[in-house]
């Protein structure tokens, strides 16, 4: 290599060093992982029909808006509805300029749109919302929960609609509302302290007090409630398994839990793994669940201390050497990252002893010497 070429390669090394020192790569790696989950989620859905329908939908809305605007100049512009899908464990709260408040509970899918500053429309596709409307002379709030329409002036209530079971519930804490919909086509006035439930599939409507007494069909209401509460605690996967009428096998449960884990539904996956370990403690899947639990806590939640515990459980109960090298490497990393340097050092020594040529041998050597 001639002198100038050598200078150019040296310059390249200098530039590499600048980049190495300038950027915190972990931040970019984390950012990538978060976005990768979104991208991989869209890859499977990105078929042309979906896009065509989306474009057609947008064009349809534009044409309709222009048509309405041209035909009736007095119509106030309909603002773009805000689509909200509440995922994870936290509720979503929206506060409006007039002091009104909408809280969408976890798992709810809803749209909030407005027609002018006074007219608000909350559409609940599925789930539960707690709404507090501050009364004003011009206030006009409308809440659509599935096929039910609740006309509101000033009041505080919670409303839920389960699209799957076709179950509607309205708990009115104060004020007065008028509810319209299937089984109550003529409208039902509801006063504060009352609860209205409607089950379309059972063709049943019930009105009761919030305290539970004076219910017109209490038993049915309670039964519905029990099913509803029960369903809240179990995942779709569990429900699907339950519908088949037989107890899920460990293998099925593990597969379902893995699906949950890979789709990012960590809480459900955790429940399933724990369930598997409790109910099938002697099965080989039980130990595999411990491994996946550890991996999930490591990769997705970055809870290294907890991850280390689960990985250690997996290694302690292992009957063969499947993934032993990888798990030991990861355990060492988890212990190091959670500050358990002494344990990390011990794991590292073990790693070097067992896998001196392993892919994490260099890291193990470093940790062992610390």
């Amino acid at each position: 290599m001639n002198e100038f070429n050598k200078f150019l390669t040296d310059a390249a090394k200098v530039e590499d060093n600048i980049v190495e020192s300038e950027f915190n790569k972990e931040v970019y790696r984390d950012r990538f992982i978060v976005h990768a989950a979104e991208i991989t989620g869209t890859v499977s859905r990105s078929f042309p029909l979906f896009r065509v329908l989306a474009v057609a939908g947008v064009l349809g809305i534009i044409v309709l808006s222009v048509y309405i605007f041209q035909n009736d100049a007095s119509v106030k512009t309909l603002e773009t509805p805000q689509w909200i899908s509440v995922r994870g464990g936290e509720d979503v709260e929206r506060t409006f300029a007039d002091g009104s408040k909408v809280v969408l509970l976890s798992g709810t899918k809803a749209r909030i749109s407005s027609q002018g500053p006074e007219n608000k429309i909350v559409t609940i596709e599925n789930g539960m919302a707690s709404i507090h409307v501050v009364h004003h002379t011009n206030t006009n709030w409308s809440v659509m929960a599935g096929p039910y329409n609740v006309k509101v002036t000033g009041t505080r209530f919670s409303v839920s609609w389960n699209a799957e079971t076709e179950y509607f519930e309205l708990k009115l804490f104060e004020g007065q509302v008028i509810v319209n919909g299937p089984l109550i086509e003529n409208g039902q006035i509801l006063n504060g302290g009352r609860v209205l439930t409607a089950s379309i599939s059972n063709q049943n409507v019930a009105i009761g007090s919030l305290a539970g007494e004076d219910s017109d069909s209490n038993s049915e209401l309670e039964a519905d409630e029990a099913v509803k509460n029960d369903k809240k605690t179990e995942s779709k996967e569990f429900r699907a398994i339950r519908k088949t009428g037989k107890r899920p096998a460990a293998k099925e449960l593990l597969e379902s839990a893995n699906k949950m884990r890979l789709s990012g539904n960590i809480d459900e996956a955790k429940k399933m793994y724990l369930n598997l370990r409790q109910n099938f403690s002697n099965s080989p899947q039980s130990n595999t669940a411990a491994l996946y639990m550890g991996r999930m806590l490591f990769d997705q939640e970055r809870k290294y201390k907890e991850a280390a515990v689960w990985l250690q459980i997996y290694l302690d109960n292992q009957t063969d050497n499947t993934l032993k090298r990888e798990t030991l490497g990861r355990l060492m990393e988890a212990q190091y990252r959670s500050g358990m340097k002494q344990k990390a050092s011990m794991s590292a020594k073990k790693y070097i002893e067992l896998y001196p040529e392993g892919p994490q041998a260099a890291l193990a050597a470093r940790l062992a010497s610390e």
Partner: protein
Amino acid sequence: MKSVTKYKKSNISSIPFTGDDWELVEGVRNGNIGACTAFYDRYSIHVQKVLTRIMGPDQEIMDLCNEVFFQSLKSIDKLKDPYCLKAWITQIAVFTGRRCIRKRKRTNWLKFVPFYELPEMDRLYGASEIPDKSVRDVRDVISKLSPDDQIVFTLRYMEQMEIAQIADACGYSLRTAKRRLASCEVRFKKIAKDYPLIANRLQSSEKWRNR
């Protein structure tokens, strides 16, 4: 000692996704987030190097690096041979870098100084222990080449890639790559005349002096 350097980065941040490139690609196609992470861990250093060669130690390098990976995730279904994953992602990195340079050159008229003379670039270079100004100067000279010339020149002389690999990464035929390399060498020498430090180094190198 060499092996320590080689595995250092991947060991700290990698997820033990066992499997070769074929399995990795399958995992990514199936939306396995572990495979996606392994994909990033396995090739991020390479992509980052290619981008640094093309663009210099730019402040957007890591953003562009992530952009390369997002692009590759979106178009992973188009990859015909999973064993060509490295060459494929190199091509995406080159195209991403080229697009960025072109975009900057197009909007350059809005600025009073070229991007490589912006204060943040001074800070970047100033942070390292550079023996003299010539490293900075060589980047200045490269920046004055056309985007395509920049890519060919830096990949050949700074990254030490073979001409066939460059042709593959840039989407050229071998003949075109050779021709472009020859022409950009001439241009580089011409521009370097305004930079005494680089000109002196060129003069002291017999091979470059006679080109």
